[in-house]
């Protein structure tokens, strides 16, 4: 098998793996379908915006949770936004943690207990996001190699 086919297979297999493990869902495929000659870097562009957005949101969430008196509505607003953007690019696992997170924010039970849950949630979110970013960056590197090799 030549280098190009190998790269393509790598790309295909890795995408399939990400789908199987739930990192990505159908929506990511929709993004890939939208990529064409008019916008050959569409997926990378959208995902790059997602990365920037996400890092800002995660920082905002962390800071909100560090306050003496936590404004859970504010935290919820950030999570809502994160949920939206992750759904838009097909980042299923990240999206699901956001949903879980929002349930806690909305419940607003005994603050201590649920503040604790919120902290765990944000950690989970940061973890899932970091994983996803890693995976997608790998995917894009392989794509780039394919292009560089004339594919």
């Amino acid at each position, binding site marked *: 098998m030549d280098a190009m086919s190998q790269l393509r297979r790598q790309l295909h297999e890795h995408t399939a793996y990400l789908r199987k493990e739930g990192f990505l869902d159908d929506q990511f495929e929709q993004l890939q379908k939208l990529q064409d000659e008019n916008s050959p870097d569409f997926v990378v562009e959208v995902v790059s915006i997602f990365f920037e957005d996400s890092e800002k949101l995660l920082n905002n969430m962390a800071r909100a949770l560090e306050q003496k008196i936590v404004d859970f509505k504010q935290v919820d607003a950030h999570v*809502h*936004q994160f949920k939206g953007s992750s*759904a838009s690019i097909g980042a299923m696992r990240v999206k699901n943690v956001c949903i879980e997170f929002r349930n806690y924010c909305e419940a607003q039970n005994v603050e201590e207990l649920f503040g604790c849950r919120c902290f765990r949630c944000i950690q989970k979110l940061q973890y899932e996001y970091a994983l996803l970013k890693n995976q997608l960056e790998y995917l894009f590197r392989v794509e780039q190699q394919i292009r560089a090799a004339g594919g």
Partner: protein
Amino acid sequence: MGMATESQFHVLAVDDSLIDRKLIEKLLKTSSYQVTTVDSGTKALEFLGLHEDDQSNPNTAPVFPNNHQEVEVNLIITDYCMPGMTGYDLLRKIKESSSLRNIPVVIMSSENVPSRINRCLEEGAEEFFLKPVRLSDVNRLKPHIMKTKLKDQKQENTDDDDDESGNPVLQSQEEHPQRQQQQQQHHHQHSNSNKRKALEEGLSPERTRPRYNGVTTVV
């Protein structure tokens, strides 16, 4: 065959999320629409030439005059959850405006809340899309645009004694008088919007107004 897809209809997309704006823009462009994206309801109203104070007075000359719009908008698609003016607020303002109320409005939302959906449809939204929006959703926009174009054409033809533009009467008017009547009824019904039937493809109304020919603008 003169399919409507060859003519560039102009869609105004409203969403506070940059990612979603990029997505909807691409979806619409892929479907051959001209697109303008804005990030708030306020900016949408500005673009449409509607100002807070002169909603009820169509004689005031706004920055983008509506009677002879240089930039014609054929459909507005807006997110529901936005800070400040929500998509619902925007929908209401549009439907309350004598100059804008005929423009079809579609709402998008990431949340499936039946009461929210019903409220929007009752207020006159044509459709309610759940996010993330797909190409199959965008494919459903054309009938709403065409229906409005047909209605506009009919009104223009019945209003003028001379047809100043000199354009021929629509074929479709003669062929489907029943449909015309149905549309008139629909216009007065705010409920049951979700039951509107799609027009057949292939109707190609003559344009009497200048079409927006620019590239995508991002405000």
